[in-house]
Structure formats: structure tokens, C-alpha cells
């Protein structure tokens, strides 16, 4: 191969961290195509150029699972995009659709009742844990640690069953709707949730022993894939990846939505910026989500049941629907919602999913369809990190960095 090769890296190290320097190459640069059928990489390709086995340039080639979310969002009314959008990250379904629902609510001028807000937070946190465990499982495979894969995938099942008990669906729950949620907690749910919390706390301790404190894992993650704070801010990466680089940012704190400002939880930040720091952030987040679940379940148990949809929508319910809502805690979608019109305007809805901040820009011209839905998912924003974090590392480190970024192609491609 000839021609000039652009070399990235060499960012100023403002945290006193070790950044592996790269140098311009004279000869023998090979191009390696990783993916899209790579075991574990899943539906994306990274084109890397290597000198020996040091990566000098990386080009994330994404789009293999693009499903035209933004275009379909413009032609299917206001309600149908909810089950559509959650297909971007099915194991994080509530987190990923809630910001859209909130943007539509802002335009409609409705607000979910307090009980519905607690229910939303409950499912969001269950999803967050499940999403992190899924990430751990894949990460385990990337590093050749198949026990971690089995354990995390198996423990994820606990939270999927919890979500199923709450919503009736294991993955694509379509739970939040404009003005409320679709189900209240069933009998016996609080006890189930407490058992799950207790179990997971115990398991996290075991994860620490077998994975986080494992010398092999640590040597593969420590000081690998370092993203200094300044670079993280420049790239605009989100979620645990940003918080692993010392960025003080979480949408639940910055723009507290639903009832996050009433709950007692912490958002941990690590300053190392390496693959291990990103992993630690996720572990700590699972711990915090467990705390939130405990508080929310207690609140839901103590407070009397009330309608879980907005007053203005509840008023339009026919008697049968009201009866079902009161006796079974199930809110039916009314037929007029399929063809409803939303007042003209523009709104941005955002939330913190398991992988970071998601943004929906929703514009209405007063019609039956959104005029424009712009979606920026966390993985879409993290994709750029491959280009700037990989150069300077050995090919061996690529799976470790990829796994630590918790990149999810269907979410990034939209």
C-alpha cells in the first residue's frame, strides 16, 4: 500500500495518563477488514490499517442494520413509532422509547400521573441492569472469558422475567404511552423485585472475584483504550464511556425526568478513562439501579393505586376501559390515539439509556404524523470513539476496547 496515511492520536494527556503514541508510517501498512460477520462484533465492520500489529488508522464502517427509523417515524402516526423505536435496542426498550414519548407529551401538553412516573422509572432501571448485563456477557466473549458470558446472560434472565411480570413482554414492552403507562404492578411483584435485588447484590460480589479482580482481565483492560477527559468531551461520547473518562454527565441528573429528582441514588464517575474504568462504571451503575428499584417498589407498594394515564385521556375512557383499568391495572390504548393529531411545535426529548444519552428531536406540523423525528442514539454517538481510540493499540486490544465501549450496532444504525 502506498500513499499518505493519516495518523490519529497524540492528544494531549491532561490527566497524567499513559497515552500510547503513534507514528507516521513509512512502509508495509496492511488493511484488515474486521466484520461484519465477526464472531461477537455483530453487524458492523471496522476497517483498520496496521503496521506490524499496531493499529495506525481505524474506520468504523457502520450501517449494516440500518432500518430507516427516522423515515418510518414520519409515516406511521404518533403511536406506532413506540413499538418501532424500541427495536433499536430491544433489551433497553423502556429507556429507548421513553424520551420519544416525553417529547410527544411536551407537544401535546399532557403529563403522566405520579404513579405512572414511578412505574416508568421502575422499568427503566430494570432495563438498565439487563442492558449492562447483556454488555458484560458480550464483553466476556470478546475477552475469551466464557464464564462471564454464561453468568451475565443467565442473570439477565432474572430482570427480563421481572420486566415480563410487570409488562407482559420479555423484551419489547411498549410500556410508556403518551400520558402514562400501560400496566400497574401485579400482585406479588414487590416481593419478586426484592428477591431479584438481593440475588443481584450477591452476584455482583461474585462477578468481582471472577472477572473484575481477575489478573488476566485486568491486564487486558488496564491502561487500554484510554480516552482522556478532553478527548471524550470533544468526541461527545456518552454514558458510561464518558463517565469512565471523568465527564460529570448523566441525563437523570442534568435534566431530571420523571421522578429521578426524588430518588436517592448516585452516579459514579471514574477518571482513568481506560477500558477498566468504563467497566467499573457499569458495575457501579447496576448497584445504583438496584437501590432505585428498592425505593420505587416500596413507594408503589405503600401508595394507593390511582389511574396510570393522564386525566385528559382518562376522561375519554368508555366505562368498560375504566373498569379494566381499575380492576386489573391495565390501561387500554384508545382507537382515537392511532389517528390523533398533535399540536404544531418542536420538542427535544432525552433520557439516559443503559448506554448513554439518547436524543429525539420531534417536529409536528399539527398533522396525524410527526413531520420529522431525528434520533441520535448513544451508540451512534459512541461510534466515533473507534476512530480516535483504537490507533496506537495492538490488534489484540481491539476486542477489549470494542467490548468496553459496549457498542450496539442495531442501536447505532437506527
Amino acid at each position, binding site marked *: 500500500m502506498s500513499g499518505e496515511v493519516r495518523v490519529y492520536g497524540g492528544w494531549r494527556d491532561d490527566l497524567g495518563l499513559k497515552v500510547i503514541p503513534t507514528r507516521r508510517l513509512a512502509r508495509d501498512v496492511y488493511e484488515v477488514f474486521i466484520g461484519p460477520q465477526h464472531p461477537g462484533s455483530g453487524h458492523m465492520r471496522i476497517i483498520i490499517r496496521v503496521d506490524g500489529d499496531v493499529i495506525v488508522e481505524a474506520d468504523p464502517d*457502520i*450501517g449494516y442494520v*440500518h432500518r*430507516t427509523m*427516522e*423515515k*418510518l417515524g414520519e*409515516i406511521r402516526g404518533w403511536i406506532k413509532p413506540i413499538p418501532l423505536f424500541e427495536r433499536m435496542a430491544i433489551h433497553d426498550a423502556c429507556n429507548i422509547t421513553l424520551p420519544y414519548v416525553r*417529547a410527544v407529551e*411536551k407537544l401535546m401538553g399532557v403529563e403522566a400521573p405520579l404513579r405512572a412516573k414511578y412505574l416508568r422509572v421502575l422499568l427503566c432501571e430494570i432495563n438498565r441492569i439487563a442492558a449492562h448485563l447483556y454488555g458484560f456477557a458480550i464483553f466476556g466473549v470478546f475477552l475469551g472469558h466464557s464464564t462471564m458470558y454464561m453468568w451475565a446472560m443467565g442473570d439477565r434472565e432474572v430482570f427480563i422475567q421481572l420486566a415480563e411480570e410487570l409488562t407482559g413482554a420479555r423484551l419489547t414492552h411498549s410500556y410508556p404511552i403518551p400520558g402514562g403507562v400501560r400496566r400497574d404492578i401485579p400482585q406479588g411483584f414487590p416481593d419478586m423485585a426484592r428477591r431479584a435485588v438481593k440475588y443481584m447484590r450477591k452476584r455482583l460480589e461474585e462477578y468481582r472475584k471472577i472477572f473484575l479482580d481477575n489478573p488476566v482481565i485486568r491486564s487486558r483492560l488496564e491502561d487500554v483504550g484510554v480516552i482522556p477527559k478532553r478527548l*471524550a*468531551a*470533544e*468526541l*461527545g461520547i456518552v454514558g458510561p464511556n*464518558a*463517565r469512565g473518562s*471523568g*465527564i*460529570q*454527565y*448523566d*441525563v*437523570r*441528573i*442534568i*435534566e*431530571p425526568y420523571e421522578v*429521578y*429528582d426524588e430518588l436517592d441514588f*448516585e*452516579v*459514579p*464517575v*471514574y*477518571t*482513568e478513562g481506560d477500558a*477498566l474504568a468504563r467497566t*467499573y462504571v457499569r458495575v*457501579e451503575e447496576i448497584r445504583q439501579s438496584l437501590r432505585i428499584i428498592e425505593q420505587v417498589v416500596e413507594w408503589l407498594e405503600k401508595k394507593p393505586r390511582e389511574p396510570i394515564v393522564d386525566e385528559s385521556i382518562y376522561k375519554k375512557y368508555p366505562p368498560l376501559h375504566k373498569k379494566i383499568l381499575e380492576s386489573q391495572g391495565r390501561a387500554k390504548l384508545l382507537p382515537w390515539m392511532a389517528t390523533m393529531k398533535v399540536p404544531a*411545535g*418542536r*420538542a*427535544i*426529548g*432525552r433520557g439516559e439509556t443503559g448506554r448513554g444519552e439518547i*436524543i429525539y*428531536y420531534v*417536529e409536528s406540523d399539527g398533522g396525524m404524523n410527526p*413531520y*420529522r423525528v*431525528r434520533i*441520535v442514539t448513544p451508540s*451512534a*454517538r459512541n*461510534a*466515533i470513539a473507534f476512530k*480516535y481510540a483504537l490507533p496506537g493499540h495492538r490488534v489484540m486490544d481491539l476486542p477489549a476496547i470494542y467490548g468496553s465501549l459496549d457498542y450496539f450496532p442495531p442501536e447505532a*444504525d*437506527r
Partner: protein
Amino acid sequence: MSGAELVEGPRDYEATLKAARARAESALREAGISFSVEEGKGFVDLVVDVDSIVKAAEALKNAGFTHVVSVTAVDYPKKKSIKVAYHVTSYLDPEIVGGIVGLAVYLPREAPEMPSLSGVWVSAEFMEREVYEFFGVTFKGHPDLRPLLLIPELAEKRPLRKDFVVREESIYEGVPERVRRG
């Protein structure tokens, strides 16, 4: 591994947005750039002229807006224009952290072209490629302007423009109405 720090909060987003807006407006005024304001729920768009957008972006960057959260393009065939808004915010400035301000331009729909801002905000690099493939907006000076998600043949059709109509598919398509109804 160092002990974890914590994100301080909760914060009041309305106050943050107000501060971010004031910061952005004064930065543009100081740079001598005229702009108009378009209100939104949860953000604000400052519309500038396409000739002054690079200067405006530099002014915002210097005022503390570290990165782009979304390059949002909207097609308005009736007005014969495409709006491109760079929704930016800050990670590092505690006063405006998370407040979303949009730096927007209206481009002619026929030949939309504007200077790339990925030189100012690296985080815009991939998003500009997205706007390029879906709307056909050319970003002058972009280091690597090619489709991101679509194959080139599909990108040629500019699928997010309003005149790209998604055809409803049906197994009964083409069967005359009277046959279908029996």
C-alpha cells in the same frame, strides 16, 4: 483504581437552558453575528446566515460548547429550503452543562451547500456524513464526506427528503378494487 467521583445534582434544567442560551447569544453578539431565534421545547435554535456559520461555530466553541449532540436537518419543500441545525452543548462547563442550543442555517433546497463544522466540532464528523447521505447537503471542507449508513446507490435518492415517498407494499397490490371486494 481511584475511588469513584459522583455527578453533583439534581440540577434544574430550565435554569441551565437559560444560562446556555444567554451564553450563546452574547457570544454571537460579541462576534458581531446577527441571528434570529426560533423557540423549541427543551432547546432553542439560533438561526444565522450561511456565510457567518463558521465564525458563529467558533464563537460558540470558545464560549464553552464542547460538542455536537445532533446535526438535525429538516426538509421544507414548500419553503424550498432545508434547515440544518447543530444542536450543541457542553460537558465541561458546570454552568451550562447539558443545555442544548441549536446553531441553524436555512439552505436552498436545489443545491444545499455549507462549510463543514467538523473542523470546529470533531463530534459533528459522522453526523454531517449522515445529513449528506439523507438530504444531499454538501459540507465543504469535510475530511471524509461519504455515506455513513446507506450504500451509495441508495444515498443518491436522498431518502429523508419529503419527495422520497415510501411506497406501501401489499400482496394484493395491482389487483383491481372490484376483484378484491368480490
